[in-house]
C-alpha cells in the first residue's frame, strides 16, 4: 500500500507525537475572553475608523532601505534561496530514503510554518528567497504576455489547497516520492508561469509567496508609500492587503485546513474512515471531501457574514467580502501558531539538524511543559480573534453607512466567535 521511501502514515508524514489536548478549563477561559472582547469592541469601542493603510509608519534610517534594496543584497539572498533549494533537492533524491531524510521536515515545517513566522517578523521574505524568481531573473526576467488579472489569487488558492491536500488527505503524506513529485510539479508550473506571464505570476499564483504576502500584512515592518522601510501599527498595515479575486478562498483554505488537521486526528473520525473506506483511495476521497467542506464552510460563512448588512447597494455588497478579508489574517496566524508551534520549534530543530547532518539532541522544552504550551495556544487563538475583531470593526466603520454600523457588524462578529470556539474546541479535543 505504501510507496517506496515511505516514512510514516500519520502525523503529517513527520512522525513523532502530537500535542496533548489543552485542558477544558483553558478552552473555557479562552472562549470567555474571546466572547467578552468581541462584545466590548462592538458595543463600546471607537465609533470613527482609526486605522489607515496610508498612514506612514515610523521610518527606519535610510541606510536600512538602501541596504535591503541594493541589487547586491537581492542577488545574494536570491542565490542563497536557490542554493538552499538545490541542497534540499539533492538531499531529497540522494539522501537516505527513510525517516532521516530532511525533505518532509523542510516541506511541512520550514516551508509551511517557518514561512509564517518569517513573514510575520520580516515581511514577505519568500519574494526575495524564491528560487523560481531567481532563475527567472537569471534568464533576463522576460515574459511573453501580461498576467491575466481576472485570475487574481485563484491559482495560489489552488496551490495552497494542493499543499494541504498532500498533507492531510493524500494516501501517504510522509512518502518522499509524493513530496518530490509535488515539488517538481510546483516548480514546473511556477517556472512556466513566470516565463510566460512574468514575475507577476510569482506574486499572484505562487502559493508560498501569496501565503507570505498575506501573513506579512500583520507584520510591524512595512514600506511607506515612498518605499522607505518603516515600523508601524500592524492594524494600519492589515488593510493594505490587495483585494483581488480569490483572496477569500486563499484565507479560507488556510483556516479551514488547519481546523481539519485537528478534526481529522480525532479518534471518531479515524474510526469512521476505517469503517467506511474499504481502500486507501476511498479514504483519500473522504478526507478530500472533508477538507473541501472545512474550507468551504469558512468561505461560505465569511462571505455571507460580510454581506449581511443593510444600507448598501448591490455593487457595494458584492465587494464587501474582499474588503473585509484582511480581518481573517490575524485569526489564521493565531490558529497556525496554536496548532503548529511545537512543530515549528521541535520538528524545526530536528529538520535543521538533519539538513546539516548534525547529531544534536532536540530541545523539547514546550512539550515537556504542557501547561505553558496550553497557555500559549489559547493565547494565540484569543489574540488572533481579538485582532481579527478589531480589524473587522474598524473596517466596518469605514465601509458601512452610519445607520447600519452596529447591526452590520453583528453577523461577522458571530462568525468570528464561531471560528474561535471551534478552534478552541478542537484544541481541547472534544
Amino acid at each position: 500500500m505504501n510507496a517506496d521511501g515511505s516514512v510514516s502514515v500519520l502525523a503529517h508524514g513527520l512522525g513523532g507525537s502530537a500535542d496533548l489536548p489543552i485542558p477544558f478549563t483553558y478552552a473555557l477561559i479562552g472562549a470567555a475572553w474571546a466572547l467578552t472582547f468581541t462584545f466590548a469592541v462592538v458595543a463600546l469601542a471607537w465609533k470613527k475608523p482609526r486605522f489607515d493603510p496610508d498612514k506612514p509608519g515610523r521610518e527606519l534610517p535610510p541606510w536600512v532601505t538602501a541596504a535591503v534594496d541594493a541589487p547586491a543584497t537581492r542577488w545574494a539572498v536570491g542565490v542563497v534561496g536557490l542554493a538552499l533549494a538545490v541542497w534540499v533537492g539533492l538531499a531529497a533524491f540522494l539522501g537516505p530514503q527513510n525517516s532521516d531524510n530532511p525533505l518532509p521536515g523542510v516541506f511541512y515545517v520550514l516551508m509551511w510554518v517557518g514561512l509564517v513566522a518569517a513573514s510575520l517578523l520580516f515581511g514577505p521574505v519568500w519574494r526575495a528567497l524564491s528560487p523560481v524568481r531567481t532563475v527567472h531573473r537569471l534568464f533576463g526576467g522576460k515574459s511573453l504576455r501580461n498576467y491575466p488579472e481576472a485570475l487574481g489569487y485563484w491559482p495560489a488558492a489552488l496551490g495552497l489547497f494542493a499543499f494541504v491536500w498532500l498533507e492531510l488527505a493524500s494516501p501517504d503524506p510522509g512518502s518522499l516520492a509524493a513530496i518530490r513529485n509535488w515539488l517538481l510539479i510546483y516548480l514546473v508550473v511556477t517556472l512556466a508561469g513566470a516565463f510566460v506571464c512574468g514575475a507577476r505570476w510569482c506574486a499572484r499564483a505562487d502559493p508560498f509567496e501569496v501565503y507570505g504576502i498575506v501573513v506579512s500584512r500583520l507584520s510591524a515592518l512595512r514600506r511607506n508609500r515612498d518605499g522607505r522601510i518603516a515600523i508601524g501599527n500592524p492594524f494600519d498595515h492589515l488593510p493594505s492587503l490587495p483585494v483581488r479575486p480569490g483572496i477569500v478562498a486563499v484565507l479560507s483554505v488556510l483556516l479551514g485546513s488547519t481546523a481539519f488537521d485537528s478534526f481529522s486526528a480525532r479518534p471518531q473520525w479515524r474510526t469512521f474512515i476505517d469503517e467506511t473506506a474499504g481502500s486507501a483511495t476511498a479514504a483519500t476521497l473522504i478526507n478530500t471531501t472533508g477538507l473541501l467542506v472545512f474550507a468551504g464552510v469558512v468561505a461560505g460563512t465569511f462571505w455571507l457574514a460580510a454581506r449581511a448588512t443593510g444600507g448598501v447597494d448591490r455593487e457595494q455588497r458584492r465587494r464587501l467580502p474582499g474588503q473585509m478579508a484582511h480581518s481573517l489574517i490575524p485569526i489564521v496566524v493565531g490558529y497556525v501558531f496554536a496548532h503548529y508551534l511545537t512543530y515549528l520549534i521541535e520538528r524545526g530543530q530536528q529538520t535543521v539538524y538533519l539538513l546539516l547532518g548534525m547529531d544534536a539532541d532536540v530541545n523539547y522544552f514546550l512539550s515537556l511543559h504542557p501547561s505553558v504550551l496550553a497557555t500559549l495556544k489559547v493565547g494565540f487563538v484569543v489574540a488572533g480573534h481579538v485582532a481579527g475583531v478589531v480589524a473587522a470593526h474598524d473596517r466596518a466603520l469605514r465601509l458601512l453607512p452610519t445607520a447600519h454600523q452596529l447591526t452590520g457588524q453583528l453577523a461577522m462578529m458571530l462568525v468570528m466567535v464561531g471560528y474561535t470556539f471551534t478552534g478552541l474546541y478542537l484544541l481541547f479535543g472534544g
Partner: protein
Amino acid sequence: MTTVAPSDMTDQQAPPDRLVVDVKIAGGNVTPTNAQLEASVNEPIVFKVDSDAVDELHVHSNPEHSYEIEAKPGQSFQFTVAVPGKVDVELHDLNKTVATITVQ
C-alpha cells in the same frame, strides 16, 4: 488475634504501574484499532502481540520506536515515552492505528 479487613490493607503490594496492550492480528484484521489509552511519562508500556503475519509496529513518540512483528503468538515489545504528547501506535503494513496513547 485480630483480623484485618481488606479495606484496611495498604496497597504496597500493588504491581508496578505499567500499561499493557494486547494486540491480535489475524487474517488482515487487527484488534484493537484506534484505542484511546493513557499513560504517564516514563511509565513502561508493553505491547503483547499475537500475529499471523509479518508487520512493523511503529510508535510515533519522540524519539520514535519501530519493532519487527513476526508471524507468531506471544511477542512482547516494551518502551517508555519521555516527552509528553499523543503517541500513535500503528501497524505499518496494515496501515492501521492500533492505539493512541495520551502520555502526560
